[in-house]
C-alpha cells in the first residue's frame, strides 16, 4: 500500500512538470513579458522605460531559461523559469502582478470556498441519491419516465440561469436572504451561504440524479439482486441493503475525485454571490489579466486533481476489498 502511494506520488511529478511547462509556454513564450507589460500599461502610457520598470518590479526582466550574465548556479536560478515556474513545486506562489503575496491570499480565501463547496457537495449527494433511489424504485413506470424527462430539462438549463433566477426570485423578490455578500462570523454567515448552496445543489440535480440512477439500474440488473429477490426480500430491502451498498462503490469514487478540488471553489457561484473565495479570486485574476495568479491557480488545480486521483484509488481498496493495489 505504502509502496503504491509512493510510486503514484512519484508518477505525479512528471505530470506536474508537464503542467508547468504548458503554462510557462503559454505565458512567457507565446507572448514575451514585453507584450504583457504593454497590455497592462495601456496604449497611452507605453514607453520603453515604463515597460522596463513594470518588468523589473515583477521580476520579468530576467532571461527565460538560461542567464548567461550570472555566475554559478545563478545561471539557472536567476531566470524567469526558475523564479516563476519552478518555485511552484515547493508551493511558493510568489507575488501577484499587483504585488500581493499569492500564498497568503490562497490560505485566506480557501475557507469561504469550503464553506460553500462542502455543504453543497453533501446536500447535493443526499438529494441526488434520494431522487435516484426513488426513480430506481419506480423504474419503468410513468414516475420514472417523467422523472427522467424532468431531469433532462433541468440539465438543459445553464447554471447561469439558475444563479440569476435564484438571486432574483429568492433574494430580490421574496427578500428571504441577502442577494450577495459574505460574513465571517458564526450564525450570521449562514444567511449568506443558504442561497449559493441551494443553487449549487439545484444546478447539479439534473445530471447528478441521472448519473446515480444509471448506476442503480446497472446494479439492479446483476445476479445478486435476483438472488436477494428470490429469497423473498422486499423490494425496499433489496434496494437499501444490497443495491445501495454496492452502488456506493462507483458513487464514492466519483465523489472522492472532486474532494480536493473543492478548495478551488466554484467560479460562478462565488463570483455571482460576492463570496471572497478562491473561485472569485480566479475569476478576478482572469478579468484583470493577472497572469501570476492564473499561473498559480493552474498549478494548484492540477496538484489537487492529481491528489484526487490518488485518493480515489486508495478509497477503492477501502470500500471494495476485492481490489488490491499492486
Amino acid at each position, binding site marked *: 500500500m505504502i509502496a503504491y502511494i509512493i510510486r503514484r506520488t512519484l508518477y505525479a511529478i*512528471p*505530470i506536474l512538470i*508537464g*503542467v508547468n511547462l*504548458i*503554462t510557462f509556454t*503559454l*505565458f512567457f513564450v*507565446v*507572448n514575451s513579458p514585453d*507584450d*504583457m507589460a*504593454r*497590455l497592462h500599461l495601456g496604449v497611452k502610457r507605453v514607453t520603453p522605460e515604463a515597460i522596463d520598470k513594470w518588468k523589473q518590479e515583477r521580476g520579468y526582466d530576467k532571461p527565460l531559461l538560461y542567464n548567461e550574465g550570472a555566475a554559478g548556479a545563478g545561471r539557472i536560478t536567476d531566470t524567469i523559469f526558475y523564479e516563476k515556474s519552478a518555485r511552484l513545486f515547493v508551493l511558493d506562489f510568489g507575488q501577484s502582478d499587483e504585488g500581493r503575496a499569492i500564498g497568503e491570499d490562497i490560505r485566506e480565501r480557501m475557507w469561504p470556498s469550503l464553506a460553500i463547496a462542502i455543504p453543497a457537495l453533501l446536500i447535493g449527494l443526499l438529494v441526488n441519491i434520494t431522487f435516484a433511489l426513488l426513480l430506481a424504485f419506480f*423504474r*419503468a413506470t410513468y414516475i420514472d419516465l417523467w422523472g427522467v424527462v424532468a431531469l*433532462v*430539462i433541468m*440539465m*438543459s*438549463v*445553464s*447554471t*447561469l*440561469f439558475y444563479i*440569476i433566477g435564484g*438571486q*432574483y426570485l429568492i433574494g430580490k423578490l421574496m427578500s428571504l436572504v441577502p442577494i450577495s455578500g459574505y460574513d465571517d462570523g458564526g450564525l450570521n454567515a449562514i444567511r449568506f451561504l443558504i442561497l449559493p448552496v441551494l443553487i449549487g445543489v439545484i444546478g447539479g440535480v439534473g445530471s447528478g440524479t441521472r448519473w446515480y440512477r444509471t448506476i442503480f*439500474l*446497472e446494479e439492479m*440488473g446483476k445476479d445478486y439482486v435476483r438472488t436477494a429477490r428470490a429469497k423473498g426480500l422486499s423490494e425496499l430491502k433489496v434496494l437499501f441493503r444490497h443495491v445501495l451498498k454496492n452502488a456506493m462503490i462507483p458513487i464514492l469514487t466519483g465523489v472522492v475525485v472532486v474532494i480536493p*478540488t473543492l478548495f*478551488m471553489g466554484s*467560479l*460562478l457561484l462565488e463570483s*455571482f454571490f460576492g463570496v471572497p473565495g478562491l473561485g472569485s479570486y*480566479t*475569476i478576478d485574476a*482572469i*478579468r484583470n*489579466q493577472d*497572469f501570476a495568479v*492564473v*499561473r498559480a*491557480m*493552474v498549478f494548484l*488545480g*492540477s496538484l489537487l*486533481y*492529481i491528489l484526487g486521483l490518488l485518493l480515489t484509488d486508495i478509497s477503492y481498496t477501502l470500500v471494495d476489498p476485492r481490489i488490491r493495489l499492486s
Partner: protein
Amino acid sequence: MPLIRTQAWWFRPALIIFITLLLLWIGFANSGVKVVILATDALLGLLLAGLLFLVAYIRQRPDLLDPWQQVSKRRIPVAAGVILLTYAVIALIDSVHFRVPLENAGHGDKVHYSVEVSSLLDKVLQQLRTQEESTYSAPFAIQLYSKEMIEQADGQMVRDYPRLKYGGAHLQHADERTADIIRLTLVGSIKGVLLWSGLLIIVLVVRRRTTGTTTKQVWQALWHDPSTRMLRTALVTFLVVLLLASVAMQLADVYHIFGTSKVGQDVFYQAVKSIRTGLIIGTLTTLVMLPFAILMGIAAGYFRGWIDDVIQYIYTTLNSIPGVLLIAAAILSIQVYISNNPDIFETAADRADLRLLALVLILGVTSWTGLCRLLRGEALKIREMEYIQAAKAFGVSPFKVLGRHILPNVLHIVLIIVVLDFSGLVLAEAVLSYVGVGVDPSTISWGNMINSARLEMAREPLVWWSLLAAFCFMFALVLAANLFADAVRDAFDPRMRVS
C-alpha cells in the same frame, strides 16, 4: 474496394441540390459583393462535407446504420432532430459572409467595400438589424423604457416615455396594440400553414413517385402506417417550427418581440444571431479534436509500449489542468497577441473570428482527453481479436490495421461521444463568456447576452427580456440536443437498450 459505393434513390436529388447551392453561391459571389470566407466558415463547410461523407459511409455499414434506424423509429429524437436541423440551417445561412460595395467611394476604378461584414442571415433579417431604437424597450412595447424630454406639438416640453421609432410605429393609439398583435399572429399562422402545406405537397409527390401508389394511398399511409412514423413526426414538428417562425417574423416586422437592448438593438435579432456562435462552438470543437483523439487513442491502445506511455502522459497532463483555467490561460495569451498585432486583421469581424477560432481550438484541446481514453481502452480490447491477429500474420502494415480494422470498429464510440458532447459545449460557451474568456465581446452570443443581463437584472426597473430571449433559444437547442443524444446513446449501447 471503394469506401463509398452507393447509388440510393436520394443520391441524385442530393447531388442536384448540392450543385444548385454551389451555382447559387457562385452567382452570389459574382453579384458585386465581396465574399468573405472567415476561418470558421471554411471549417463549417469542411464539417458539412465530412458529415455528408459520413452519412454515405454509414449507409453501407449495417452495424452503424441499424442504431440510427432505431433512433428514427422513436418520436422524441426525430422531433429533436428537426429542431436541431432548423438551428443548423439558420447557422449555415449566417455563415455566408460578404462585404457590400460602398456606393460613392470610388476614386477611379477600384471598388471599396464596407468594413462591415454581413451575412446572408443579416440580409434576411435586414429590418430587424437596422430598426434600432435609442435604448431599452420592453417586448411589444411602443414606447421606450425610460422617460425623456419630449417636445409636444404646441412647443411644450414634457417628460414622458417617448414613442419608439420603429416598434409599433404604425399604430395611432396604444389601445390598438392587442388587436393588431392578434391580427398579425393570425396572418403569420396562415402563412406558416401555407408554407407547411407546400412542404407536405412535395413530400406527397415524392412518396407517390417512389412508392408507385395513388395520392390517396400515400396520404393514408402517411398518417396511419407505422412505417411512416418518422416522416409523420418530422412533419408535425416542422409544422410547429414553421408556425413559430412565421408568426415571429410577422410580428418582428413591426414590433420588437423580445424588446431592445441597452443600445437599442433588437434582442430577437441578437438571439437568432447567437445561434451560429453556439453551433460553431458545439460542432467545430469536435471537428478539431476528433483527428487527435482518434489517432492517439487507437495508436496508444494498439501499439502499447512507449507510444502508449507518451500518449497517456500527454492526456493525463492536459486533463489535470482545470479546464476553465487552461482555456483562460490560452485565451489571455491570444488576447495579448491580438491587442499587440492590430494590423493583421482586415475587419473587426476577422478579429472576432480569430478569437472564436482560438476558443474552439482550445476547447478542443481540453475536451479530447475523455474520448482518447475511451478509444485507447477499446483498442486494447480489439487488438487481441482474431481478425487483427490474422491481419498481422498476413503482414498487413500497422497503419493499415489501424485504418481498416480498428478505426471502423470504434466508430460507434466516436459517434456517441460527439453527440453527447455537443450540449455541454453550447452551455460552456455561456459560462466562458461570463468569465471573460469566451467569445469576443463584439460577437453576438448567448453568453454575452446573459452577461449583460446580469447587470440588467440588478437594474431598477428591471430589464428581463435579454435573459428571457437567451434562455428560450439556448434551452430549446440544448434540450433538443440532450434528447437526441440520449436516444443515440441508447441505440448504440446495447446494455441500455434492454431497460
